[in-house]
């Protein structure tokens, strides 16, 4: 498994089972997803009505950037007022499903992407802002462009974890996405550096189409003056900047790019952990090899002193 899935497997499997015409059953499951997102799948009133609720830490910020509209667009008729304690809910009536199997699969897919869609809002916002700015910038040459167009839009901050955030900024020729990452562990930091370096080098070496990646320990210039960005302390915080160029910014590629970039942090941490597992595997292997060497180094028949109960020893004569 190289890439993480975008959808929530549990929601997918529960809905697939329910939609397949299995007898309705009571469901009440609270499940987590990455980044402290909590889902609640339940059948509050009747067994045929499945309520899927989402709780996400930064929902307020997301709404600010238009999450409500994105979700409304995606889920439309299924949206219901949010369950208490959650930020967003959709209700699916099993008796009212699309008749076509493909449509049903599509619906399952959509619902399992609930988290992705909620988080997509700021990115979509940035995309549309980029289009607007591009439009505006095309009227000027680069020197005489007014300040607003040259500088680009405001920085959108999404504090999706306690100490980490995503910053998105659109300008007329690019969209910049900055992740602030924090590492508690010394070893993780080292692994993380190696990985990021790979990202930075990838573009230089082979993949010219890749977005530009920059890594630094102090806040990049784009984030100057953004509230909540603290000066770096102790090198624990790093800033990973992705620069999306126009080739990534076509409307056709938008959904893929958004999904990819959202899972970056989890992907990053997953691979740090996977490489540790790989190293552990090699360490175990090496230990087993050394043990084998030790076993082989042992003399065939070790000379043991044999004693009788009274403490006398024997020696085989002529041996």
């Amino acid at each position, binding site marked *: *498994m*190289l890439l*993480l*899935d975008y959808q*929530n*497997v*549990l929601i997918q*499997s529960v809905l697939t089972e329910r939609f397949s015409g299995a007898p309705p059953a009571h469901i*009440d*499951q*609270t*499940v*987590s*997803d*990455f*980044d*402290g997102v*909590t889902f609640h799948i339940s059948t509050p009133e009747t067994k045929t009505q499945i309520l899927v609720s989402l709780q996400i830490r930064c929902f307020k910020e997301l709404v600010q950037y238009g999450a409500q509209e994105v979700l409304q667009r995606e889920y439309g008729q299924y949206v219901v007022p949010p369950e208490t*304690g959650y930020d967003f809910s959709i209700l699916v009536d099993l008796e009212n499903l699309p008749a076509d199997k493909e449509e049903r699969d599509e619906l399952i897919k959509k619902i399992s992407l609930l988290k992705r869609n909620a988080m997509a809002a700021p990115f979509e916002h940035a995309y549309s802002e980029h289009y607007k700015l591009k439009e505006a910038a095309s009227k000027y040459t680069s020197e005489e462009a007014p300040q607003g167009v040259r500088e680009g839009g405001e920085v959108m901050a999404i504090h999706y974890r306690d100490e980490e955030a995503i910053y998105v900024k659109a300008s007329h020729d690019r969209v910049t996405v900055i992740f602030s990452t924090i590492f*508690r*562990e010394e070893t*993780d930091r080292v692994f993380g550096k190696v990985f990021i370096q790979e990202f930075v080098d990838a573009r230089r070496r082979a993949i010219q189409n890749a977005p530009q990646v920059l890594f630094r320990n102090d806040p990049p210039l784009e984030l100057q003056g953004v509230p909540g960005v603290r000066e770096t302390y102790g090198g624990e915080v790093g800033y990973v900047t992705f620069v999306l160029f126009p080739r990534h910014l076509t409307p056709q590629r938008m959904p893929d790019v958004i999904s990819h970039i959202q899972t970056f942090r*989890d992907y990053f*941490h*997953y691979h740090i*952990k*996977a490489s*540790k*597992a*790989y190293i*552990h*595997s*090699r360490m*175990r*292997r*090496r*230990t*087993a*090899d050394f043990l*084998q*060497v030790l076993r*082989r180094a042992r003399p065939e028949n070790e000379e043991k002193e044999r004693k009788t109960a009274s403490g006398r020893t024997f020696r085989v004569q002529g041996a």
Partner: protein
Amino acid sequence: MANQTPAVVMDNGTGFSKLGFAGNDSPSFVFPTAIATKGPAGGSGGTGSGRPAVANKPSFLTGGAGPTGHLSMKRGTEDLDFFIGDEALAASNGPGIAPRILTPTLIVRSTQDGPSVDICTRPGYGLHYPIRHGQVENWDHMERFWSNSIFKYLRVEPEDHHFLLTEPPLNPPENRENTAEIFFESFNCAGLYIAVQAVLALAASWTSTKVTDRSLTGTVIDSGDGVTHVIPVAEGYVIGSSIKSIPIAGRDITYFVQSLLRDRGEADSSLKTAQEIKEEHCYPVSQAPRVPPRGRQVTVDVGYERFLAPEIFFNPEIYSSDFLTPLPVVVDGVIQSSPIDVRRGLYKNIVLSGGSTLYKDFGRRLQRDIKHLVDDRIRASEARSGGAKSGGLEVQVISHKRQRHGPWFGGSLLGQTPEFRSYCHTKAEYQEYGPSIVRRFALLGGPGGS
């Protein structure tokens, strides 16, 4: 609790792994504890999976390239090329076909029925079972199995969650340490608690209406797919010296049903049918006849395997010739070999757990049989003592709704209590004391807890 992430409860058994979040009433995922890796099946390299293959030269002379296709030779992303659970079974069955197979036993069938193609030699994926007899055998595979369960299925960042894992009774402490190493060093998990399955099964029985006091004293009958254990637990501690295991469990019942079907010349006597009959239709005889069941076979009409199958727990001689002690006698023996001051509690709280105890009225039948044994003994000792009267002994077998995933449910129950986190060992503690810290855990849900 609003801002707290739920604890992750993982119960990795020999046959199936149960994964989910604390607070739910059923595991989110139940799939075979199987991992399919690129290359042939069977233990190549790794620790524990048999002896490492003998190289002509020590591997540090050959640059680590032993004769086996071990991961450490690979330089690409081969270490990520694997599947777990149902996907593993599908992948190992050859690329392209990918049928949905539910149980490991069916694998055997598909190889037999197929045009004599050996799975092991087929290019593609080899299937491994990292857990044998409840204990982790191959840590390489287990580590990757866990990694995939966490990131692909549960989708959690281990640094944000506490983990509750289970272990079989009499698990060597070294295994615990290995587990802790993986969870703290690879995954950086926030906190770890390792509980004994039997104790969790006891906790799961608290949901039954028959249980009045939430004690952790009782006898657990844990019957899964491979083996049946009878485990006495006193105050949350397993009485290791008294544990007995019975080599009859779910798989044997399936085989037995199959053989009955074959004897009768049924058209379909596959393992799958046998399993279905076992799971859907079997029940133990509530009025156990005193005549040996062997004699009854002749007179009973079609469908006798319905009650004959669970009967092998009570009269094992109908199935096996080397193990002949009925389950009630084993349970009685286990309790009699436990310290005398806890025996009363052990008789009073006999808890069933595992898939093979799900037969209707299994508990009642067991209770009746054990009661008979106990009463007989009391009567005999009353007669010997000459007139002394015994106050009697209460025997109670508790069956409840959560039996199938008993240990997992118990974990879910205990994992959602507010004090669970304080019972966990954290990464900081691990680094302070080293892996040996996980040899001891404070007793979760014990006296003093809620």
